């Protein structure tokens, strides 16, 4: 590549084959250039702890996550709901007791209040029991089964749902809750893994600390948070010299089969990759397109988003391509994106 050719992004070198493939992949999408404002919402449900120690631990994890959501991710208090076992523990922060009624009401309210393109995150912290459709997340009073949660989530017809059950014996939630526009994360492989989990500690840490942003886009996707937590759980048990008693999984392609390592399996992770806990989001696939008053900047954002999307799509078909061709196309797109991002930064964008 000559120096003169790298002064700006150029797609001229993209081969016909790749253009064709990408065109196929982008069919019906490339034309969407107007960003739609949307929001993410966080519902934290802390279940019945059983004793004072767990009560404190669970509450602290919930608070840490909520603090990260508000302080680092700029969610407004209205976007966060904390249902806890003992509201009097922090009356200013816990909206209501985490019993069946309040959970049902919260979900029903969000189904009405949220926009069609919003993303809603449910994070369950506590103990779990049971198996299959009767898997339960233990709450004060009568538990809600996985099957019942599935019914409640059906209220969200178009919104994207991140349902993260960090409890013990949570694994069978994956199969029961699996569906369109849903990312289901569980701390365990199945109902038989019923020891107390450490997964929530690291899942919360992924948002609260600067440790999980592996693609350097300054945001934590649900996939990144999952990968971080999953990896740290394994490390925790290894360092402690103990056998692993919790095997987390993520499912988001609707087939009911979770992946332990979505990055490797390539069957899950696509939706989780584009779900972000943040104040102001865009629903289009991989990119956040901040709103900007500057129309030029807004246009740059849209071009940036398209380039990022092309890169992601190219990566998806990597295994089907000649390595040299892939490398060449990737390089072209990355250079184009680098120039675009530089331009955005020069205009005061980020």
């Amino acid at each position, binding site marked *: *590549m*000559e*120096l003169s050719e*790298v002064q700006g992004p150029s797609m001229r070198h993209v081969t016909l084959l790749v253009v064709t493939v990408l065109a196929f992949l982008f069919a019906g999408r490339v034309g969407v250039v107007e960003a739609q404002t949307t929001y993410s919402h966080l519902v934290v449900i802390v279940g019945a702890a059983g004793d004072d120690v767990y009560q404190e631990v669970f509450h602290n994890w919930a608070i840490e996550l909520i603090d990260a959501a508000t302080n680092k991710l700029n969610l407004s208090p209205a976007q966060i709901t904390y249902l806890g076992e003992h509201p009097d523990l922090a009356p200013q922060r816990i909206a209501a007791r985490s019993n069946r009624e309040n959970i049902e009401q919260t979900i029903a309210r969000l189904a009405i209040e949220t926009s069609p393109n919003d993303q809603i995150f449910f994070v369950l912290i506590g103990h779990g029991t049971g198996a299959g459709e009767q898997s339960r997340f233990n709450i004060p009073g009568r538990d809600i089964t996985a099957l019942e949660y599935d019914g409640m989530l059906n209220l969200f017809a178009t919104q994207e749902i991140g349902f993260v059950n960090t409890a013990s014996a949570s694994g069978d939630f994956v199969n029961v809750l699996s569906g369109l526009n849903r990312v289901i994360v569980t701390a365990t492989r199945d109902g038989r893994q019923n020891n107390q989990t450490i997964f929530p500690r690291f899942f919360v840490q992924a948002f609260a600390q600067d*440790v999980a942003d*592996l*693609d*350097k*886009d*300054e945001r934590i996707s649900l996939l990144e948070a999952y990968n*971080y937590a999953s*990896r740290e759980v394994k490390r925790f048990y290894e360092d402690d010299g103990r056998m692993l008693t919790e095997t987390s999984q993520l499912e988001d392609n609707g087939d009911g089969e979770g992946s332990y390592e979505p990055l490797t399996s390539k069957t899950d992770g696509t939706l989780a990759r584009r779900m972000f806990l943040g104040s102001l989001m865009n629903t289009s696939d991989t990119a956040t397109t901040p709103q900007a008053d500057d129309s030029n900047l807004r246009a740059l954002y849209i071009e940036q988003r398209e380039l*990022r999307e092309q*890169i992601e799509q190219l*990566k998806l078909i990597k295994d089907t391509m000649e390595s040299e061709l892939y*490398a060449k196309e*990737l*390089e072209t*797109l*990355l*250079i184009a*994106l*680098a*120039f675009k*991002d*530089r331009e955005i*930064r020069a205009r005061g964008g980020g």
Partner: protein
Amino acid sequence: MSPSRRAVCIGAAAVLTLAATSVPLVFGTQEDAALAAYRSGRYDEAIRALQEKIGSGQDVPHDHRHLFRALFEVGRYMEAEEIARGFIEEYPESSDLHNSLGEVLWTKGHLDEAETAFQEASNRRAVDWLTAELNLGIAAFDRGRRTEAMQRFDRFIEFYNNGEATTSSDLTAVGIACQYLGISDSALYQDALKAFDEAVAADPNDLRPRILAGNLFLEKYDSGNAATELGAVLQLNPYHPQALLSMGRRMRFDGDENAIAMAESALEINPNLVGARVFLSRQLLSAERFDDAIEEIKPALETNPVSLEALPILAAANYLRGDTIGFEEIRDQIFSLNASYADFYNTLAELLVENRMYTQAVNFAREATMIDRESWRAHGILGINQLRIGDVKGGRSSLEISFAGDPYNVWTKNTLDLLDTFPDYVESSTRRFDLMIEAPESGLLSLYLGGLAEEAYQYFADRYEYEPPIPIRIEVYASHEDFSVRTVGLAGLGALGVSFGPVIALDSPSARPIGEFNWGSTLWHEIAHTFTLGITNFRVPRWVSEGLSVYEEHRARPSWGDDVSASFLIAHLRGNLLPVSRITEGFVRPAYPEQILHSYFQASLVFELIDRDYGFGAILGLLDGYKNGLSTTESFKTIIGSSPDVFDETFNTYVEELFSKQLTALRPILDEEANSDSRTSKPPEYLRKIAEENPGDFRAQLSYGAFLLDDERLDEAVPYLEAAKRLFPEYAEIDSPYWHLAMIAKKNGDTHRATEELSTLTAINQKNYLANTELSTLYEELGNLAAAAEALDRALYIYPFEIPIHQKLAGLYENMGSHSLAIRERKAVVSLAPVDMAEALYLLAKSEFAAGDQLAAKRSIIRSLEIAPGYPAAQELLLAIIGSGRNP
């Protein structure tokens, strides 16, 4: 039992049935005293009683048989022969003792006469005619009439099925026949065990089938069951020579230091036991005492001049001594006795392997396979040693043949299992080395290993004026058990690395806990072996090769190679160190657990001394002598002008002078032990008193200093620690004064002092990871980046798997402008699959860009951005790379 040709695991069902009858037996009261004495190993008493009974004329035929057996077992073969001949003469119509006569004649090497006697016993349908039939089969087998032999053995299945084998002896004969038939059909080994089991059931007092079962277990590498069987025999008769010998073999297999004593005890009962002489002679050959081995085997050949057990030992001794004519004479004699005797070459090959002559072993094992294609032992030896000289494909093929014929051989099976894992390894090459490293570690280790190996090769090639054939294969095993199997076919080897010459196998640094070894010095050590083996055509004595390897470790890096230890000096004070002429025994037959380590160090000191007094040329001269077939005695006389015995005195003086201060400081330990005055349980006041009254006592100073440290009286501890350090400066173990003094200095804010202490410590102790990382931090605080980097670099050869160490070292090299080393460290980080791979690749690209390697930098930054397309710093670097004016 049905000796059908079923394949059953040898160690399962048969063991259970044998175990069921392994309860110690009690002789019935009706047994006569002579027989009871014989069966419990009171041979002299039994012989006297039987002789008296026979002399009194109250004898019956079985008294003669028992007397014969008692005399035979204790090796009084002449008398045994006389008893047999006398009986036959006295009772010409009797069928008894013809087979016995045959057995003693066979044992003495009168083969034709023996066969005649066996045939006579068989013809007369003696009570032991089946045993005589078996002996005819064995005679045919051993004399090279293989077809006839196997036909005879085959008939034993019919004998059994027809119910003709009823007594313990008969069933034992069936078992032995099955064992021979097992050569062609390994399932018969199982039937052999079952037959022995039934023989025991038929006569619980008959120890022979148990011994044979034990031997068979051992032959199939099942030491545990062998020990059970032989242990049961020795409970009944603790003096049974054959059982003692078999137990000795079993102990040798397990590395038990008392194995030789056990075999020697067999010889005390039966001084003419050929097998025991063979066993002891083999041990001497392993210890490179070739002349002694010949002296040991001579009595065996006097007993039986045509022993197919003993003759190969003599042949091997001649070969190892470089006596080609002597070797060929014995070889021809053996093949005149049995033209298809593959075990001659097998035994020879095994002994050559024990003397590290792997290529020659391959050649002889191949000869064995050509003589006898059903010698599974030969295929096994061939395969294992093909692997050792780098012929992996050929080795696998040979082992598969061996395993198909004898699936009970654990060594073969383990090695084939290991070979099945080879696809999990990554093979790469440098100029002179082929590296094979397990995939997850390959990226990291090859960064260091290849470079170090090349450095070693060039260094040794210059120094020894010799270049071994290339490529040299280096295999690195993350599992110590795999390394062990690769080396000796079984788990449990204690070594860290091994050099077969063209092939080196090593424990990966991940195979052992941090601080247990320095893999860099281990590699250096093994490559030194490759040179000393090669330059002498594999005739270098073990102690010389080991000594030079340790000596070269010391020369390679200041910290590498073990330094003198307290235990070494105490062994010297106790007179436990072996003389130079016998150091090899310390490696192959250590008298106490630490003797192996002591022998390594002692041998290295020998070469320090030779280098000092005679120059390195003398060492090259010694090696040249070995190459030309000279013994150590001859080489020493030629090059140094004195025999090893005389050199011993010089060496002792050298040790006394070199460690004069340290020996004085350690001597009180001996006095304490003599007075049983253990200081560990003494109160602090006692420790203080002893330390103050004995300023020259190393342990007194260190003990009280350590106590003060524990009591957090740091400043008070310093003078005692200083004293201990002064008395024994080489002491750099985990509780050494250096470490404690460094930590005290650090706490007091004296960074310079702390670095001095740790610097000395790390120059002595090659395995202290923490001291090196700590030292690096201190040097960095002092702004000495080069020294900080050196310390971390040393740490990597102890344990290279910690990402932060590589990151830190990369930063240091970058600050020092050492681009290539910085790149190596950045690559190391990437190879360790860090969580933040995008950043690791970005930093690698940055280093590569700084080094002017745009092409590599672009490749790395693209990989980074593939993971994190919007990574601003990486994007800017990419744009800088492509806009740098060059065309990467």
